[in-house]
């Protein structure tokens, strides 16, 4: 390292998986072992990174895979120049990565507690790393429930993993699609996430809820979670503001005085409510 904090490390695409229309998961292996070691020394679930293609730029996504692997994964949708370039890369091609950056979910404080994951559409990737991290250490935690919905069946990401979770007795998985988004052979629920969420059992003491998804879903889910007994300090989400540097310098991710890249991206509902709402 030459001390250039903007210098990404080289990764190699190990696997590419199409999750949904224009949504892809890349599994990236570190080209150089020291980079991998440096990453995993710091990485905790919830952190994000900047994935890039030289010549096109960098884009910010969460790290969607848990610690304890020798790779990292990210899941993204085509949105602009960088994501298009990432989609254009093949298995075996290099890409770049910077990170991990930001704070993380307080997973250690959840030991022995119940966890409820609520996700919509492309909002599952930030929670997936947490879910896998929990499942890796399943015995340390209480009940694990996942409510995941998408607009249509096609828009559900991680379909194989969903099937795997559905088959586990230690995970309670509810999948749902918006009315009209079902296919003839759809076995899951039909209905919006907040509606389905209402049927979940009340929060046990100390339980935490993690919510990620489209703003409208989050907004409508919060009162439901309150109704289930989750306090604002026990509801977690991530903010995804536009970033360029990821390291607290470029000046565009802040919400009020909070730098999402350094103080976030993980916030409790209580923290989010203290932010100037108009800046979100």
């Amino acid at each position, binding site marked *: 390292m*030459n*001390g*250039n*904090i*903007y*210098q*990404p490390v*080289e990764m190699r695409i190990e696997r590419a998986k199409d999750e949904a229309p224009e949504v892809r998961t890349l599994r990236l292996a570190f080209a150089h072992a020291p980079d991998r070691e440096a990453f995993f020394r710091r990485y905790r679930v919830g952190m994000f990174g900047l994935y890039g293609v*030289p*010549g*096109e*730029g*960098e*884009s910010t996504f969460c790290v969607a895979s848990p610690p304890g692997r020798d790779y990292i994964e990210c899941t993204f949708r085509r*949105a*602009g120049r960088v*994501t298009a370039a990432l989609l254009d*890369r*093949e298995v075996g*091609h*290099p890409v770049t990565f910077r990170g991990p950056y930001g704070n993380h979910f307080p997973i250690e404080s959840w030991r022995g507690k119940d966890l409820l994951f609520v996700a919509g559409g492309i909002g599952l990737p930030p929670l997936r790393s947490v879910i896998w991290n929990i499942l890796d250490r399943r015995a340390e935690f209480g009940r694990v429930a996942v409510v995941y919905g998408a607009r249509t069946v096609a828009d559900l990401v991680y379909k194989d993993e969903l099937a795997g979770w559905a088959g586990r007795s230690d995970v309670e998985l509810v999948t749902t699609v918006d009315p009209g988004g079902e296919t003839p052979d759809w076995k899951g629920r039909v209905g919006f996430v907040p509606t389905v969420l209402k049927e979940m059992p009340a929060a046990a003491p100390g339980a935490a809820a993690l919510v990620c998804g489209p*703003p409208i879903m989050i907004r409508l889910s919060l009162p439901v979670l309150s109704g289930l007994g989750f306090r604002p300090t026990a509801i977690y989400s991530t903010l*995804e*503001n*536009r970033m*360029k*540097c990821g*390291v*607290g*310098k*470029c*000046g*565009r991710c*802040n*919400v*009020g*005085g909070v*730098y999402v890249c*350094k103080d976030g991206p993980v916030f409790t509902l209580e923290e989010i409510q203290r932010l*100037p709402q*108009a*800046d*979100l």
Partner: protein
Amino acid sequence: MKSLSADRLQDLAAALSAAGYRVVAPVEADGVVRFAPWSPGAAIRTDAVPVNSLKDVFFPPSEAIGRWRRSGDGFDAIETRPEAPKTAALAARPCDVAALAMLDAVFNWDFRDSFYDARRAATVVAALACSEADEECFCTSVGGRPDAAPGADALLRPADGGRTLIVEPLTDQGRDLAAAASGVLQDGAAAPDAPPEVRRRFDIGRVGAWLAGNFDSPLWKELSLPCLGCAACAYACPACHCFDIQDESGPNGVVRLRNWDACGLGLFTLHASGHNPRPDQASRWRQRVMHKLAYAPERFKVAACTGCGRCGRVCPRGMSLADTAERIAAAAAPAAGPAAGVPA
């Protein structure tokens, strides 16, 4: 006491240049006084505040922060080091020097920006105390002084009615600079000139208090109406430091550039989804003011405004942070009348 005849600033520059410094100073081009590399023969203008600030020396408008060479479907990274020649920045104003505290903080609060730091380390700053203050100047309102430049390596203080500049080294680097220039410095006493009166003044405490509780005030819309959404103020500002990162390709490879950016520009926070958390100029102007006078003091214990007044000098519509602060101070004053009645 070392001093220098005011009309021998060029000799000072020449001496430093001979001593291996790259000299940056206020010079004129096409009638515009700018902080720019000095070349022999160029007059150093102490009579005008340069249109750009000292910031440019440490944080240029565009610089490479990454390079790659292409190879087929791949690319090889090329180590990218900052260009940081040994530099002497002459005749920077105290308000410019004051902004270095903000820049130092943001470029080092966690991750350390080697590009900024390298140039900071390679540069000696010889500030020039002000002998006059114009209508846009308001350093004293934000904790500054026209006649002191903490953070500078040396201070050039006008004396004898401006005919002489007293050279006061403040750091070892400043002493090195004085030593390098000893040939043009003279000994002897001179009577320092009285600092100019900075007439523009507002109560920053009152402004800060108002900001803390008025994120959603309708005043933002009113204050921002004249703003046309350019970056003139931000780029002239000694403390503004926002940037964009853009890649440029050539036949051999790629250069990743860091380019100045500004919160006043509409695309600054636009998400790829089309959502823009700051969708109008009111929210952008609020961000600018809040960042300078609320967030920066909160996070870095230093205001991101040093009262240099450049924003007011360059704004195509004559807006300025001082105008806004004055309006806010008036709005915050319990005794003051309705906001509209405040002299603007």
